[in-house]
């Protein structure tokens, strides 16, 4: 049944703009979609390799800044009299560069920190995110610091034979985010099902055994970090060209926490988990806003999170999967005993 969650989501959310005209809700769905992509990317690391990146927002923010600066252009002077001037280009180029540069960053962070894992990885990623935030805040010449990068152009897609299409409306951006989300989902699904996915699972479950079978731990984890970072970078780029203004607050720690909540509540290590978690915790604030005071909203938000994890410690999707597995007739899960097997057990 959990296999059907993703296709079901796709159908439902592909149809939403056809009947929903409320720009406020459309905006909420777009932002939720962007964070769901981040959650999917975090799930690749946290859910499948067991490594917690508490600085995931760094990749998101770098993606946003790279994409915005590629589109806007910049003019910075570096030490030794070097000077880099960039005229400004297409947002699509920015999107591609955001993916590449965050991918490389993820690779470097992975290489550096996977020699020592677990808590060390958590600390390295937190520190990294904080360093990047400080750079964005203080390198005013490049990033405008707290003054923010403004007037970031909307995403432009070159359509063959039709010229460029600039995505100005909410509906266009909605479908762009949905498209990238589907691609991200497919990338994760394919990776996890491949032998690379098996290597990740093996490492997470029993590292010594996996090593004895020839699994290269550093390489496997580094690839996971690279792909994960690149996906978060893509989400950052979408965010920059949709919101059209970014400041160092895109590196806020609370965004990372939101991603972690989406993954953990939805079910880490399951493909549909971040989708379900992302939807619930992306839209929950929107749902609570009209019915209660701002202070009460966050209390309820926290209460719901605690309630979910209390009832379903592994997250919503794995709990659903267990439920359906239990309901299935026993004959499907248990093969009848063969004479050979009965003999071996005697």
């Amino acid at each position: 049944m959990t296999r059907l969650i993703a296709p079901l989501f796709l159908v439902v959310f592909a149809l939403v703009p056809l009947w929903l005209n409320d720009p406020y809700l459309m905006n909420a769905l777009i932002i939720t979609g962007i964070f769901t992509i981040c959650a999917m990317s975090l799930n690749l690391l946290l859910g499948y390799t067991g490594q917690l990146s508490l600085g995931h927002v760094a990749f998101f923010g770098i993606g946003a800044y790279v994409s915005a600066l590629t589109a806007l252009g910049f003019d910075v002077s570096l030490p030794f009299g070097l000077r880099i001037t960039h005229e400004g280009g297409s947002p699509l180029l920015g999107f591609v560069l955001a993916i590449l540069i965050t991918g490389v960053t993820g690779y470097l962070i992975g290489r550096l920190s996977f020699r020592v894992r677990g808590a060390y990885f958590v600390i390295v990623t937190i520190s990294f995110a904080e360093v990047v935030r400080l750079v964005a805040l203080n390198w005013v010449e490049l990033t405008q610091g707290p003054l923010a990068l403004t007037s970031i152009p909307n995403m432009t897609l070159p359509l063959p034979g039709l010229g460029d299409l600039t995505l100005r409306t909410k509906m266009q951006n909605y479908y762009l985010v949905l498209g990238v989300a589907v691609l991200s989902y497919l990338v994760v699904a394919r990776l996890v099902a491949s032998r690379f996915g098996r290597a990740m699972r093996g490492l997470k479950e029993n590292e010594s055994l996996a090593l004895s079978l020839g699994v290269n731990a550093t390489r496997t984890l580094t690839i996971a970090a690279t792909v994960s970072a690149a996906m978060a970078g893509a989400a950052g780029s979408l965010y920059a060209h949709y919101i059209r203004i970014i400041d160092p607050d895109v590196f806020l720690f609370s965004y990372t926490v939101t991603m972690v909540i989406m993954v953990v509540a939805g079910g880490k290590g399951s493909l549909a988990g971040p989708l379900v978690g992302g939807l619930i915790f992306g839209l929950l604030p929107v749902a609570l806003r009209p019915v209660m005071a701002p202070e009460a909203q966050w209390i309820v938000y926290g209460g719901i999170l605690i309630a979910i994890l209390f009832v379903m410690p592994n997250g919503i999707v794995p709990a659903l999967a267990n439920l359906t597995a239990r309901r299935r007739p026993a004959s499907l899960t248990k093969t009848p005993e063969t004479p050979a097997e009965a003999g071996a057990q005697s």
Partner: protein
Amino acid sequence: MSAILSVEHVGMRFGGLTAIADLHFDVKPGEILSLIGPNGAGKTTAFNIMTGFLKPTTGRVLFEGRDLAKTKPNEIARLGLARTFQRTSVFANDTVLDNVLIGLQRFGEPSLLERLLPTPRALALEKETRARAEAIIDMVGLSARAHEKAGSLSYGEQRLVGFALALAIEPRMLLLDEPVSGMNASETQSFVGLVRKVRDAGVTILLVEHDMPMVMEVSDRIVCLNYGRLIAEGTPAEIRNDAAVIEAYLGKSAAKLDLKEAANA
């Protein structure tokens, strides 16, 4: 005949504790060699050194003439030297089939693109890998359990899964660390058949085991360790009558008694 694995004067100290003082022996291609000795003799430490999980303080290990001093465990596995673990070691949350598939992950290195796209080649490779996994599971006799979680199997069956995992990397040499502990007599008996079958397929086997009847039955040659030193080496018949071995297992006075009895007889 040159050795497939040479342990050359290996010593291992953990701080002040000497786990292995001076270990020196060769394993010949195609033989079943057993490493025996009382608990704490250094057998498992020796295994961990041979497979790269520990680096020896002194001496070196050669596999097919190659010094393993700087080789990581996963690289050693890829060279064709596989091992099983003393404690039951399986991927408990995965089915038996998935376990063996994880073991097979080193076969074929599809490009990153092929990892992402279900190209015909990638799909064919996937199908082939699956068939291979099923063949291995069939060989160890766990076909009926293929779709059950490895952690839910009996102790003896989990040892077989561990054995299947080691076979999955198609080793030229296999190190088995107490493979039949937790197995009953009939399971042990069929396991002996399995080990012989694997050896006949050309895989050299080094065995650590406490089940002496099993060791005596299956081994071509036996090496006996005590206090991190090699105390005897020979065929099962020679080892059975070796004074030093008897002393190591039964204590000094017992050994004397045994010898006296032998003299009286």
